[in-house]
């Protein structure tokens, strides 16, 4: 089994704050869906931003597909890692298609893209990605007019067009009702299989985590408390939740 991402003793503190991540070590297997669960404020978002190369860890090492993450620019990382923040990071004033096309910016030059010109192949690929997420009929609609679930599909399509090997998504599908969440996560699964993408997602709903995660990591107080495919942890958590 190959490793998509490996973190070794990673510490992180926001400036003038106590450490949020404390000696986090984890291994993300390639081609799988890893879900990170944990109570609010425990550091999931922070961990994902560190793993995506957006925040620099204060200590520890991270490797992505066996190469060190440190010292590489976002542009260099863009062919490896896609990142979807909790609020999705879509530009509301632009159309769904334009948002998806942004996934290709990392491999296109300034000259053409600043004029708004994208190669035909990229536009076709963008429609393909939207289609895969079942939203191509709304490609010309402003994101502003789209529903929450539709926006999630657009965000995934943008990441698909980026063609990274690893996608890191924060609290994905968290605000959706279960039926919709299942549908979208199902589409993500088939897209991931087709394009050989590894997924890391944070989630707080046990039902979704169990259904979607091949691996589930539990996090508490800035540390991974159980680094395994723990159904046991999930059982106790769902018992707590229903109690």
């Amino acid at each position, binding site marked *: 089994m190959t490793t998509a991402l490996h973190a070794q003793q990673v510490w992180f503190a926001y400036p003038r704050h106590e450490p949020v991540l404390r000696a986090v070590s984890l291994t993300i297997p390639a081609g799988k869906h890893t879900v990170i669960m944990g109570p609010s404020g425990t550091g999931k978002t922070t961990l994902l931003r560190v793993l995506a190369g*957006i925040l620099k860890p204060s200590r520890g090492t991270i490797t992505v597909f066996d190469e060190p993450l440190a010292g590489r620019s976002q542009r260099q990382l863009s062919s490896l890692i896609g990142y979807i923040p909790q609020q999705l*990071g879509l530009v509301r004033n632009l159309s769904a298609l334009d948002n998806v096309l942004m996934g290709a910016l990392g491999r296109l030059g300034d000259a053409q893209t600043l004029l708004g010109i994208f190669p035909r192949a990229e536009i076709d690929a963008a429609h393909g990605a939207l289609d895969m997420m079942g939203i191509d009929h709304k490609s010309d609609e402003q994101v502003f007019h789209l529903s929450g679930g539709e926006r999630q599909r657009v965000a995934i399509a943008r990441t698909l067009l980026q063609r990274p090997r690893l996608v890191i998504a924060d609290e994905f599908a968290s605000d959706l009702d279960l039926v919709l969440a299942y549908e979208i996560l199902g589409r993500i699964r088939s897209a991931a299989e087709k394009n050989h993408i590894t997924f890391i997602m944070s989630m707080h709903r046990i039902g979704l985590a169990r259904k979607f995660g091949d691996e589930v990591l539990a996090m508490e107080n800035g540390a991974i408390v159980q680094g395994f495919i723990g159904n046991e942890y999930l059982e106790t958590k769902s018992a707590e939740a229903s109690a």
Partner: protein
Amino acid sequence: MRPSFFVPLMVAAFLAASLAHLGLFDWQRLTRGVRNLGILGGEMVPPDLTILPTAAAALWETVEMSFAGTLLGFIAALPLSVLGTRNLFANWLSSLARFVAASIRTIPVLLWAIVFVILVGLGPLAGTFGIAAYTVGYLAKIYADLFEGTDPEIIEAVQSTGASKLQLVRYVIVPETANAILAQVLFMLEYNIRASSVLGFVGAGGLGLVIQIYLQSLDYRRLATVLLLVLAIVLVMDGLSAWLRKRFLLSTQGT
């Protein structure tokens, strides 16, 4: 004393002292002023409409100057404000850009007009450049602050697609702030139309020259016609910008 109590007290004391110093408590002068206002108003009616063609031509020149000056200033302000966006560029560069904008802004539009009268001679061209200069200083600051307020999550997300700084500006920052960009430039156009009606005082073209002549010759009935024209154009501008706002900004109302 607690500062929460002390600060308003100081402000009130300073206000009272300033007003006294400026003569606001001089009742004699104030009553005289009100009486004179009545006389001036009386001398302004009825407005002398025979000068309408002359005034309208001068007004049109003012509108042209304001429009061209605002547009030129807007075009120059965009790159300057991008450079002044602190979360995009190194601190020294954005500080430099902001310093340039602040220096331009320090000089009032009337002084800019004088500078350009010296540089390019009397006439509306000087006024146009004066308006453009002032507009750069103002918009560059407003826009830089606006750009800095762009939702960092969106910037992070698009940065992680490998987008360059210019691509970020083109695809995230400008679209996200488009409404405010348009609203500010419309505000600036309105402001410049009013401001440029005095630029003629220094020989920089437009309506100001006409206003100055009627003021100096105490020709208040003709002055009234000119002021009515200014009022009309400001109202037209109001309507126009309301329409533009509706036309282009409606799609994002209720965010």
